[in-house]
């Protein structure tokens, strides 16, 4: 395996939801998704709302199952197919290899912001002082006021929660970052901070797969755009 091998390779992936409580209604999401992401690249998923962009990120994260295909993630010296990996292997990938900034923060309730942010770094085995310093650095950079750090983020504004989420998503050293609209609820100054952070990760060789509705941000961070509407399912299942 060489360095130019993709970090992420999505091959012939199809996904639908079967709604058993609606008489088995099948809602197709995507069919035959195929693309790769190499180290140092930021591949942006394009296409209209509802085309399945967020679903693709969730499939790569192992949060959604898939009907068909393979999602191969390079982890250390091997390839793990998320589609067939055991829960234990997926948790391992999430700890060592993948990071995810979801659209909405879903933190464990009643946990202080600083601890929410530090957790992925601690899980990688970083010393507590180092993890704390990194978390403080990211929160400061993202303009999350220090008086909020000891509070759980549940009561924060949408923009503050999103910045906590970004800090949590970026704190650990991973090879693959999944970014679902990380700048959606941010003002211009904070958007610029996030763009800088993404550029720094890119320069460090992190492979990124993202969704950015903001055209300016997309133009600045995207190495390539993959149009998800090309993967639309044409024939609707009966």
């Amino acid at each position, binding site marked *: 395996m060489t360095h130019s091998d993709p970090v992420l390779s999505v091959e012939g992936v199809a996904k639908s*939801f*079967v*709604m*058993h*409580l609606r008489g088995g209604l099948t809602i197709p999401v995507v069919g035959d998704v195929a693309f790769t992401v190499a180290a140092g690249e930021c591949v942006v998923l394009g296409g209209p709302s509802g085309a399945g962009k967020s679903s693709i990120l*969730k499939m790569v994260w*192992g*949060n*959604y*199952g898939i009907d068909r295909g393979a999602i191969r993630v390079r982890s250390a010296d091997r390839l793990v197919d998320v589609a067939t990996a055991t*829960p*234990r*292997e*997926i*948790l*391992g990938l999430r*700890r060592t290899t993948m990071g995810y900034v979801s659209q909405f923060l879903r933190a*464990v*309730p*009643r946990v202080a912001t600083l601890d929410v942010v530090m957790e992925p770094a601690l*899980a990688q085995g970083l010393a507590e002082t180092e993890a704390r310093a990194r978390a403080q650095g990211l929160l400061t950079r993202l303009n999350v006021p220090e008086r909020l750090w000891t509070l759980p983020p549940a009561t924060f504004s949408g923009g503050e929660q999103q910045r906590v989420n970004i800090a949590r998503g970026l704190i650990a050293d991973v090879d693959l970052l999944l970014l679902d609209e990380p700048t959606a609820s941010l003002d211009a100054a904070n958007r610029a901070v996030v763009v800088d952070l993404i550029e720094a990760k890119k320069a460090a060789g992190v492979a990124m797969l993202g969704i950015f509705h903001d055209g300016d941000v997309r133009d600045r961070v995207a190495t390539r755009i993959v149009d998800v509407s090309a993967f639309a399912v044409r024939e609707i299942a009966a």
Partner: protein
Amino acid sequence: MPMPIPISTPPLLEARGLTKFYGDRLGCRDVSFDIREGEVLAIVGESGSGKSTLLSLLSGQLPASAGEVLYRTRAGEIRDLAALSEAERRFLFRTDWGFVHQDAARGLRMGVSAGGNVGERLMAVGARSYGAIRAKAEDWLDRVEIDPTRIDEPPTAYSGGMRQRLQIARNLVTAPRLVFMDEPTGGLDVSVQARLLDLVRRLVADMGLAVIVVTHDLAVARLLSHRIMVMKQGRVIEEGLTDRVLDDPRAAYTQLLVSSILQP
């Protein structure tokens, strides 16, 4: 959520094809899984789904009709639970295992002081010094957020949430490796449940415990577990990573369970 230990570690407990019939009636059928230290497995399903039967089989309290449960002892031996002597099984239960019942009265000695409840488990593993036992009991009461000055009161003087926390202290004082929990938050007020869940989450992570928790509450499963097994009519109908099962349920019954709660 606590992080599991590396994949290379062999299973602590492994169930293979566990089946239980009560006469003609099915308790559970063909259940297989394994669990390692640091992992939390939630078994979810409604009453009568077989989850309590499964817990009894796994903890050796009920003989299986078919299948086996293998357990890795502290000495590193893999033992078939059914082949253990009664004394060995009791020893495991007192030392290496914990069992947290929904009804704290089943897991505590209600006529004995809180300190006695915790100290009894310590004495079972050979502690003899009164001072050391009492000091450790005080420390554990503090760890489960019970005022240590109440050490001499019996659980009957405690609230429901305190009793449940005392039960947890009694179970964890011997540093077990595997803890079974049967609806640990059932019957408690919502705010009391939240506090108990926070406590359990913290202790599980700090101690690297393996936990098998039976619950009908999907919020409990989401907060505590890495993996979920969904049971219906004695069978496992869906299993997987907790967030996958809850966010993308495949089986009709799992979809029904998930759709039945306000915010999964």
